[in-house]
């Protein structure tokens, strides 16, 4: 069997991992710079496509052409996401069906963006193993619905990867813990990532990982924390500088990145300061952990309701649990840990790196599928009830939530009019009683029914949810035993033809010169350095002597010249030289900024008294 890698396709970061045959342990694969996390960001600025850290650098420079957190848009429609569009710097076309991101004149779907991230990880794994990688296990939030899972699978196909299994993130994490830490007992996995939240309750026994219940929110995560901070900062800026930055896309990105960085620092520190040099003014602000906690308290509290519902569905009380495991970068936030500990009444596990544990678990599942592990088995569930719309718009549930997958349900359909040749069904997912309040998955059209009096044809439809949590529908006319023709119209998905076309397109793009892409990346890096140096010189020229100024000016001119040419090595050398030439200046400026910050803090303290 060919090699299968495990991929965590995250909202903020993505990773690829594999199981080391020698040790039997999963390992993450770093890129050539030693970086394990690939920022899930894709930039369409300029001629080529950038992904990861290179794309992240374009967030502030070209916000309208740089796509981040696309996972929140996977398998969704315009109406689902329109509330958060004001916060996204890129445009989303108001269209029926699946979300379409508008970059200039080009429309691109979320699976295509995710495919670019997947492809980059695929290439990273290929470089690591020195062989082509064609198969992967890809993780998704446990609470992802059918459309979101299908979109993830489509992304794999567009990237040239056969997604042999979609695994739920919390259960993947439990596999990684199971291999190394937890052998038996009832476990709760609390997974709060960049954009999604899941809670899964598992029973682990004799190598079997049986999910008892799962719940969550596919629109809640660290992104929302950042947004809460940004809104607070905007208010503060309005009050102190009389400026509203809401419509300034570049400033909003600066604020978002600064807010994210401050949030991260506040996991370790009680207080941190934020300095953002805007064109017209430099914004400085201190933020304490207590202030952050006040801003995100409601968001954190809203994760506890799904926890209680999952426990109720599993028929368990918090005290029944043996272990609680924390997964996802946002569980580093002390308030999150405190609330989880309060709810479950025990200290949660977080020994495995919360950023990596899902990818490690995906690698374990990949190894199981490849036949490398035979004593572990994951029995997962479908997170949402599956039903069909019946008369009056009421949902008739065929497969209740938390049913172990694979699973199926059979339903008989017939005609209501003499000679009727076609029967429609509307399949939905969700817990509400009315179809309009549930998630519409697809409309199915059974056709080719022989004309008969009403009620005579008997068509058996089998709804099968496979081990990926994805629905497959087949229909048989019972009299003839003939398979009935089904046409599927996914409500929020790509058609088979769409995916085919995207696969072809991606091959065309793949053939584009790798060298050209590397050149773009190198140029972008040079641009970033040039911008920084120019800004530094306007602010800090007075700090250095004339000779040093001359050296820097010369290095800057050399870099600008190299940037205009196509020799990648020369650009890189010039960039390095530029960095060296400004090292001293950077130090001086850092000192000055620190002194400034200290001075302003002291002033604040005096004011308070």
């Amino acid at each position, binding site marked *: 069997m060919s090699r299968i890698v495990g991929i965590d396709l995250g909202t903020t970061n993505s990773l690829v991992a594999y199981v080391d045959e020698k040790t039997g342990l999963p390992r993450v694969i770093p890129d050539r710079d030693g970086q394990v996390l690939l920022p899930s960001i894709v930039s369409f600025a300029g001629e080529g496509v950038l992904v990861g850290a290179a794309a992240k650098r374009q967030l502030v420079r070209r916000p309208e052409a740089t796509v981040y957190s696309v996972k929140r848009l996977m398998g969704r429609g315009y109406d689902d996401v329109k509330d958060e569009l004001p916060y996204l710097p890129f445009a989303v076309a108001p269209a029926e069906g699946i979300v379409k991101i508008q970059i200039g004149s080009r429309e691109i779907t979320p699976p295509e963006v995710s495919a670019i991230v997947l492809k980059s990880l695929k290439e990273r794994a290929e470089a690591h193993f020195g062989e082509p990688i064609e198969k992967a296990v890809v993780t998704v939030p446990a609470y992802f619905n059918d459309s979101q899972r299908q979109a993830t699978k489509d992304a794999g196909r567009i990237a040239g990867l056969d997604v042999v299994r979609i695994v739920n993130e919390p259960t993947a994490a439990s596999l990684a813990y199971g291999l190394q830490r937890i052998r038996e007992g009832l476990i709760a996995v609390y997974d709060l990532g960049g954009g999604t939240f899941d809670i899964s309750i598992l029973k682990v026994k004799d190598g079997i990982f049986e999910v008892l219940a799962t719940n969550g929110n596919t629109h809640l995560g660290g992104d929302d924390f950042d947004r809460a901070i940004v809104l607070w900062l905007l208010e503060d800026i309005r009050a102190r500088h009389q400026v509203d930055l809401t419509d300034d896309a570049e400033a909003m990105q600066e604020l978002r990145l600064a807010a994210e960085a401050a949030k991260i620092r506040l996991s370790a520190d009680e207080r941190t300061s934020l300095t953002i040099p805007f064109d017209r003014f430099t914004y400085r602000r201190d933020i304490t952990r207590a202030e952050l906690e006040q801003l995100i308290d409601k968001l954190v509290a809203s994760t506890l309701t799904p926890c209680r519902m999952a426990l109720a569905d599993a028929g368990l009380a918090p005290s029944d649990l043996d272990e609680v495991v924390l997964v996802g970068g946002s569980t580093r936030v002390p308030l999150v840990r405190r609330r989880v500990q309060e709810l479950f009444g025990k200290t949660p596990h977080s020994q495995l790196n919360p950023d990596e544990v899902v990818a490690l678990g995906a690698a374990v599942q990949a190894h199981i599928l490849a036949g490398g592990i*035979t004593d572990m088995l994951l029995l997962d569930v479908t997170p949402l009830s599956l039903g069909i719309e019946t008369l009056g718009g009421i949902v008739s549930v065929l497969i209740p939530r938390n049913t172990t997958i694979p699973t199926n349900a059979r339903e008989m359909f017939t005609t209501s009019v003499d000679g009727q040749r076609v029967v429609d069904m509307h399949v939905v997912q969700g817990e509400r009683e009315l179809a309009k309040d549930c998630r519409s998955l697809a409309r199915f059209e059974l056709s080719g029914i022989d004309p008969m009096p009403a009620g005579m044809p008997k068509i058996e439809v089998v709804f099968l949810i496979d081990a990926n949590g994805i629905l497959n529908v087949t229909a048989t006319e019972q009299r003839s035993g003939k398979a009935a023709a089904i046409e599927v119209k996914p409500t929020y998905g790509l058609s088979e033809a769409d995916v085919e076309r995207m696969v072809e397109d991606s091959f065309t793009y793949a053939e584009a010169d790798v060298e050209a892409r590397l050149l773009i990346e190198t140029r972008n890096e040079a641009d970033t350095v040039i911008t920084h140096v120019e800004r530094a010189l306007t602010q800090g020229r007075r700090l250095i002597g004339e000779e040093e100024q001359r050296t820097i000016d010369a290095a800057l001119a050399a870099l600008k010249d190299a940037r205009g040419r196509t020799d990648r090595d020369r650009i890189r050398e010039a960039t390095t030289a530029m960095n060296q030439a400004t090292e001293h200046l950077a130090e001086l400026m850092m000192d000055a900024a620190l002194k400034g910050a200290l001075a302003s803090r002291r002033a604040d303290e005096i004011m308070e008294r």
Partner: protein
Amino acid sequence: MDHFEVFGLPRRLAVDGAELQRKFYELSRLGHPDFHQSASPERQAEILEASARLNAAYRALRDPIARIEYLVRLEEGRETREGATVKPKAPPELLEEMFEIQEALQEAKSGGLDAAARETLGAQRERLQARYEHEESRLRGPLTEAWDAAAPAGRAAALTAFKESLATRAYLRTVVDDIDEALGSSREGYVAHRRH
């Protein structure tokens, strides 16, 4: 193959939960699609089907009430399907009280309840919940034993008793859920999980 046969069990309701789980894990190890990735597509389809059947069987049998619901369907020769097996029916002795409750629920929908009405409804909810639990213990206890002990001739009567009890239980569940919703003690519109 019915769900009892999947586990090699007779059509009886007394099932040892731990033993059932042990067998479920054992059969899963043998037949889960994860361990048959290199089989032919036809074989994989069969394995998928068998695995779905095993999971459905375990789900139906592991819970004592779900087991009874399944048995009723099986004995009546109806299509295998989860969900509505019996039409909810109000217990006769509660009809009058139900009338009152429905009125209060209507009121809650159209405008809201005052504190006194809420309190009354809350107290009624507790009584109905107790009645619901009583119905469940009757199903698990005496009715289950009656079925397992019944001679073939007595089975029809045991089945009828099951159906009546299940109908009452389903009715009580719905009303308690409706009251919870009216009192705002469950998430808006979220159908409480009707555990079998």
